[in-house]
């Protein structure tokens, strides 16, 4: 009896959750579906959900006509470059804060968090003018520098919370067993730190890939990543829904897949370790 009731409940919860889940996902699904339509079908009334002539011509057109690969490559270089550079700067810092905490470590961490509160628009003008004067406007280098600094606090915090969980006793034990500092780093610390570093890398690539304030303001045609390339479809002459959908699908697919793998790390990274 009790079982029947709980099963009926389970059916109810399942139906409700699936309806809401599909509703939230629907705009993405619709974009993917539209990307396989012809332009005429994309605006046909009433709209067709399944029964139309599926075509991949939009993908070929977008790839052929619009330097898509250059923008894709820019996104890859900017997001990976800024993340790797950020890790190089942040790993030693997080390392020392986690293993050799000083009196001010907590304050330094809170201060780093507070730099994230500086609204980007408050520093847009000087950065824009400096970049213009030194020739960094519309360059990948310029964006790598800015995004590294933007995400540095998050990288440090994430790494700190991961390193904090490596037990100090294990280091002492390996030292007792006569491990040199070199052995300690190669055989003990690195294997334990790699998962945390990988998660940090993943989350920051996602954040940098989708960053759309600095990438829109500091680039033009040359260094524009996908965020800025897609924005160019907002002009009236760019109103081709099927092609917009194809370009959008290609722009979000890699990060959507990466993102699904990083749900747990996302919670931890974006809440600065406060929710795990």
């Amino acid at each position: 009896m009790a079982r029947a009731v709980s099963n009926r409940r389970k059916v109810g919860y399942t139906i409700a959750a699936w309806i809401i889940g599909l509703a939230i996902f629907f705009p993405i699904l619709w974009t993917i579906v539209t990307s396989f339509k012809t332009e005429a079908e994309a605006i046909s009334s009433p709209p067709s959900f399944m029964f139309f002539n599926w075509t991949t011509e939009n993908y070929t057109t977008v790839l052929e006509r619009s330097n898509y690969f250059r923008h894709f490559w820019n996104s890859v270089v900017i997001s990976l470059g800024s993340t790797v550079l950020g890790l190089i700067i942040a790993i030693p810092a997080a390392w020392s804060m986690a293993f050799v905490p000083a009196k001010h470590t907590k304050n330094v961490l809170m201060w780093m968090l507070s730099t994230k509160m500086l609204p980007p628009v408050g520093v847009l003008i000087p950065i824009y003018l400096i970049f213009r004067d030194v020739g960094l406007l519309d360059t990948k280098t310029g964006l790598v520098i800015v995004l590294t600094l933007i995400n540095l606090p998050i990288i440090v915090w994430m790494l700190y919370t991961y390193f904090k969980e490596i037990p100090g006793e294990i280091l002492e034990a390996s030292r007792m067993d006569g491990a040199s500092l070199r052995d300690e780093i190669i055989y003990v610390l690195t294997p334990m730190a790699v998962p945390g570093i990988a998660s940090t890398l993943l989350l920051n690539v996602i954040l940098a890939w989708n960053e759309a304030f600095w990438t829109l303001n500091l680039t033009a045609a040359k260094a524009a990543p996908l965020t800025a390339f897609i924005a160019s479809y907002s002009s009236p002459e760019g109103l081709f829904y099927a092609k917009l959908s194809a370009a959008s699908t290609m722009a979000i697919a890699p990060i959507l897949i990466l993102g699904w793998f990083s749900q747990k790390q996302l919670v931890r990274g974006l809440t600065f370790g406060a929710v795990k």
Partner: protein
Amino acid sequence: MATQHSRSAARIMISPAVLLLLAWMIVPLALTIYFSLLRYNLLMPGTERFVGLLNYKLFFNNPAFFTALLNTLLLVGGVLIITVVGGILLAILLDQPMWGQGIVRILVIAPFFVMPTVSALVWKNMFMNPVSGLFAEFSKAVGLQPFDFLTHAPLASIIGIVSWQWLPFATLILLTAIQSLDSEQMEAAEMDGASPLSRFWYITLPHLSRAITVVILIQTIFLLSVFAEILVTTNGGPGNASTNLTYLVYARSLLNFDVGGGSAGGVVAIILANIVAIFLMRMIGKNLDA
């Protein structure tokens, strides 16, 4: 335990990160404040001169400023209410026993990974467009007049788009927090005859307070600087109806080339963000210690 040697090594390891962040904060900040005291227009190079607080005076006397300030607060507040309330409800639902929980979670979290320009354009063209958008098709199907969302309710539409992007984040964090709730406590309350509502009010909600604080803090940081969504949907219009502070400063400085006026706006944005930040840091500090 830590030797003098390892202490100084630690200091050396930490200094690049600290110095870079310090420079990133101080140099542009000082320049923004300096520019805000100048008459400085990019179209008239060589005519820069010190004008004191004139830019601020002009900025505050401009009705666009109050519209932008109000829009900023409405945007942040509106999205926070929708995502926190919606996120709590959705997290509770997703915590129930069901089939395909993992897949539903993947569907719900997906919008967070969509870049802002894509989600704004998809909503603008394929859903909110009054001629060929899905909402218009739907209105026609039920015999209603299509509604031109971005012309007649631009700010509400943008609040909707941004909420769609952030609801997954709130849900995911609150769900993570709910899953750490002690189920025995819940069962005990149920045995004692506590109604679902009072169980939610006295057990679930207090347990979630820390996660809710974190959600509000993180989202506020990002929501104060919403930009791409406005740029590709309405360009801040019609008039200033959907201009927030971030967009206003952008329009002043990079579209009208008024560096002085734009910088004054930037300083105001920094002060506003700091007021919010002080409240939030205090809140999160309290919650983190507990």
